[in-house]
């Protein structure tokens, strides 16, 4: 059967857009290899000093470890909360479901800067009561990140629940399974990919979160994006280029593996 394929003009325009999309990602490679202390193109001579400084400068390692810790905690919080909420919605279909889901999705649609000032208000208020949980603490950042990622986790879990056959649950119920058994032994095993995806996405979103983090941290809770931000605003540090190259390579590898896996299924 003949299909409608893009013509030469479409292809040329698409290639231009593709080049535009890839250009800045490729541009960081030469910068990361510059021997200069400042942002510059390498002048004939290449150097790995900026990659070395990523390992040798303890600030980078500390912020990476902090970002991982915050990512794991906030991803756990948001996945558990989103899972319970979505199970409640799916199993009991309560009234006002649309309004409640809409409320949960708010942090995703409200402009990030407004969420940032809101969470700044929250954490500075909490700081009055507790010194390890509030403004500029890692627990405070983890909680703020959970607020920002929980809508995404909820959407993913609700979508995978919507593809589940209700009759499975009805059968379990008819055979006398309790709510707890239905949830943990019938429904959750069937949506485990959705749950895992939600947890991974929450982690990734927390790992690269900067808009909110900028408002709620100053000197103690320096996550990796926060450290990159500091290096970008003042004197541009080419170590950021080296770090960017590593992050880009990881992204490309993960996407390549994912596309191979989905093609095999």
């Amino acid at each position, binding site marked *: 059967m003949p299909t409608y394929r893009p013509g030469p003009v*479409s*292809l040329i325009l698409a290639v231009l857009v593709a080049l535009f*999309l890839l250009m800045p990602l490729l541009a960081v490679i030469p910068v990361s290899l510059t021997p200069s202390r400042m942002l510059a193109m390498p002048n004939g001579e290449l150097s790995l000093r900026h990659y070395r400084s990523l390992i040798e400068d303890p600030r980078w390692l500390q912020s990476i470890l902090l970002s991982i810790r915050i990512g794991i905690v906030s991803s756990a919080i948001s996945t558990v909360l989103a899972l*319970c909420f979505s199970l409640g919605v799916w199993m009991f279909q309560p009234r006002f479901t649309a309004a409640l889901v809409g409320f949960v999705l708010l942090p995703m649609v409200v402009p990030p800067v407004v969420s940032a000032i*809101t969470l700044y208000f929250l954490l500075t208020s909490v700081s009055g009561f507790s010194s390890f949980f509030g403004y500029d603490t890692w627990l405070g950042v983890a909680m*703020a990140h959970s*607020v920002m990622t929980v809508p995404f986790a909820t959407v993913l879990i609700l979508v995978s629940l919507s593809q589940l056959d209700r009759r499975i649950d009805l059968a379990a119920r008819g055979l006398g399974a309790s709510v707890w058994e239905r949830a943990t032994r019938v429904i959750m095993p069937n949506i485990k990919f959705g749950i895992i995806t939600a947890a991974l996405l929450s982690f990734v979103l927390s790992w690269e979160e900067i808009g909110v983090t900028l408002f709620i941290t100053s000197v103690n809770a320096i996550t990796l994006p926060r450290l990159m931000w500091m290096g970008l605003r003042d004197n*541009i540090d080419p170590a950021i280029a080296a770090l960017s190259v590593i992050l880009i390579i990881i992204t490309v590898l993960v996407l390549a593996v994912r596309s191979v896996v989905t093609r095999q299924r």
Partner: protein
Amino acid sequence: MRGVLSDRMGAALLMAPLLLFLVLAYAWPFLGVVKWSFTLPTPGLGQYQALLTDDLVQSVFIRTLRIAAIVTVVSVAAAYAITVVWVRGSPAQRLVAEFCILVPFWISVLTRAFGWVALLSNRGLINTWLQSIGFISEPLALVRNEFGVIVGMTHFLIPFAVFPLASAMRSLDDRVLLAARGLGSSRMRTFWTVFVPMTRSGIIGSALIVFVFSLGFFVTPAILGGGRSVMIAELIYLRIFQSPDWGLGAAISVVLVLFVGALMALLFRYVRPKQLI
């Protein structure tokens, strides 16, 4: 009767933790921000009056709307071009297009903004190259101005503009296009008079998403504008952290939320949510 009661209890128990969490950690502090806008530094509507009279705030609002409009037109047009190939191309073309859309999509906003700094700054790739071939003697000012902000934001938002367009193009019936071609319409004419009108809902959806995102954009303008092309979000940041004027920062936030809310309401009147995914 017992079943109904326990159903309600079960739903409440499962849904309560997240709802409680968001009420305490999001809704309550947002009301606190609203309160700031009416009480700091003095109680009353002073901050909202300032929004209407302050020249700086006005110029930032106008700049934000202008940049958002330009970015929306450019991003949707560019996204359209690559989505056509992603949805309708040969299998190999689709794979390449998907790669070019998804890799930038998953890379953090900071890395992408930094990539543009590496390309556009005075000692960046483009200026170094143009100078080395003798085309220019002084570096061009490509960054720390509105141009840099528009380029960086467009780059960030193209992948977001792609998804609604792709869903509109996927649901389009091939036979209509083949019929137009069979009746003697040229490629160009089929594209402009059949293909584009049939993807209208996708165009509206992606334009509104890009426009809404650009209004509240913070990171890219702050890095590529270099403090010279301040947009609303950066103005809020500056009012909170640099010239402490929390009331004004809060008032701008409230206006921004109301404006975005109105735009979203408009979006859902014209496009059903399902068409966006």
